[in-house]
């Protein structure tokens, strides 16, 4: 029995070692950095004086932190709700066998393939207020022009919409895979009991899909909270900080103002926020499953 245990552990060893080297080590380094005055000079001299909690005090006390926190929350919730809802609809839709459904579903992954710098450049043109295709089209049907990226009150919504667009393929594919793995017999048995349509979804599809849904939602939040490229590409956090999130703010501190200590402190706060979310979600979810 002991040997069996040891053997089972062997399955986990490669992954554990990899995680320690490629995640454990960087995080430890980042935590240390956040308690230091880590600046450009540090890179040359190797010296970074300890400053205790000063970096945390600074970033938490900054005017921008509140804005960034709210924007991060809105951006994350908006993106996840949109991506998941549309992704699930698409997954259910593509599950019905119709001519070309497989090919169409594969092509749906295409947005994923565009390098993010290209996506953001393309979207920037499409959304341009004056000559963008979208406003041209909307103008044709009598709407607009919409200040997609130029109004502080619209820009965050726009950035969320673009991020939803990016996330749909992921959600669709994973959820579709989950749907495929639900045994057909369950539905056949269900239909004998009168569970069809909405009922079948509620009592068969959703419970069976639950583990996959958990993964999709938790990963979705975790990925979305740290989204950087697309915001930098579309708005650079502007206009007037309307799309500034904790991630962009941390990037700004580290790589524009070269205050790496503060940048590290802020990215640690970001990690803690998403860890808290994951714990709460997994707890609630386990409870729900146990019930």
């Amino acid at each position, binding site marked *: 029995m002991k040997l069996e245990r040891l*053997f*089972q552990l062997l*399955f*986990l060893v*490669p*992954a554990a070692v990899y*995680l320690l080297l*490629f*995640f454990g080590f960087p995080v430890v*380094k*980042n935590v240390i950095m956040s308690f230091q005055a880590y600046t450009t000079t540090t890179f040359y001299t190797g010296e970074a004086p300890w400053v205790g909690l000063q970096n945390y005090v600074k970033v938490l006390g900054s005017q921008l932190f509140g804005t960034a926190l709210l924007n991060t929350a809105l951006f994350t919730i908006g993106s996840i709700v949109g991506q998941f809802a549309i992704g699930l*609809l698409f997954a*259910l*839709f593509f*599950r*019905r*066998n*119709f001519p*070309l*459904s*497989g090919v*169409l579903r*594969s092509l749906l*992954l*295409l*947005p*994923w*393939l565009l*390098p993010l*710098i*290209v996506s953001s*450049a*393309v979207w920037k*043109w499409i959304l341009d207020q004056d*000559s963008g295709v979208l406003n041209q089209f909307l103008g044709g049907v009598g709407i607009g022009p919409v200040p997609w990226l130029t109004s502080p009150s619209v820009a965050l919504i726009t950035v969320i919409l673009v991020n939803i*667009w990016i996330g749909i393929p992921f959600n669709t*594919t*994973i959820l579709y*895979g*989950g749907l495929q793995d639900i045994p057909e017999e369950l539905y056949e048995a269900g*239909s004998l009991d009168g569970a*069809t*349509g*909405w009922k*079948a*979804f509620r009592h068969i599809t959703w419970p*069976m899909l639950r*583990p*996959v849904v*958990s*993964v999709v939602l*938790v*990963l979705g939040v975790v990925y979305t909270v*740290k989204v950087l490229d697309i915001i930098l590409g579309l708005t650079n956090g502007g206009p007037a900080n309307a799309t500034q999130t904790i*991630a962009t703010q941390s990037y700004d501190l580290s790589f524009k103002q070269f205050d790496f200590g503060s940048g*590290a402190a802020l*990215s640690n706060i970001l*990690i803690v926020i998403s*860890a808290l979310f*994951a714990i709460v979600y997994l707890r609630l979810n386990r409870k729900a499953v146990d019930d």
Partner: protein
Amino acid sequence: MTDTALPLRRPSGRGATPKPRLRGNGKKYLLTAVGVLILAVMLFPVYWMINISLQPAGPAIEAAWFPIHAQFNGYVQAFQDQAGNLVTSLLVALGSVIISLVIATPAAYALAQFKVRGVNALLFGILISQMIPGIVVANALYAAYNDLGLLNSIPGLILADSTAGIPFAILIMRAFMLNIPTSIIEAAKVDGAGNFRAFRSIVLPISVNSLITAGLFTFLFTWSDFLFALTLTTTQDVQPITLGIYQYIGTFTSDWSTVMAAAVMASIPAIVLLLAAQKFIAAGATGGAVK
């Protein structure tokens, strides 16, 4: 649109079971039409990229709706500059798929099926790893790679890029493997198969779908990686396509048709893979059903 797209909302139960056997051909093609429409909306930015890549050089805001006077100058230029980078990207992406699956598959199986202590801790560790902003990892890796001589090397990029693939593949495959009935594996063991044999001859064949999904996403993650390409290469010897495109979008000038031509070329290998994998997924699904 929604009514036909949503099997769940349909009032009558019959056709609402998933994978309904659609009788009328008309209905089938209606679904295809809806699918094409969805795809058209989702892929519009991709179309726009292709459109600009075919326009004569100049500002992208002037681009016509259709490339009536298509020019291929951009492609000629892009191919000359980027052919080598495409090969690099392909090698890195394939390498990362192999490494990720080799490390992640046994771990996912262990996490789904074994009741070893520490499983939950490791699972949470993997989840946490997803919360770490890429920049944190990249910064720490640079120093380590510099000491180990892994900068500007394909193995270095493969290992770093797998930070996206490995934890993700573990979580996704575990979610699928949770659905494997323990009884099947137990039965194999009763027949005298060890843990390893049971894994190889029972678990792997059943989980082919999830392996393909995980591999596919690992490929896509790696293919579109930009951060590690930017931070872990210092010369132009080993340069993935994303970095090549980034260099195109330079500080002072923009020749958009060439940039977009490079982006289109960057999408081709992945499109081919998507279409090919789609067949495998279908084959895997039916194969599983027959058994």
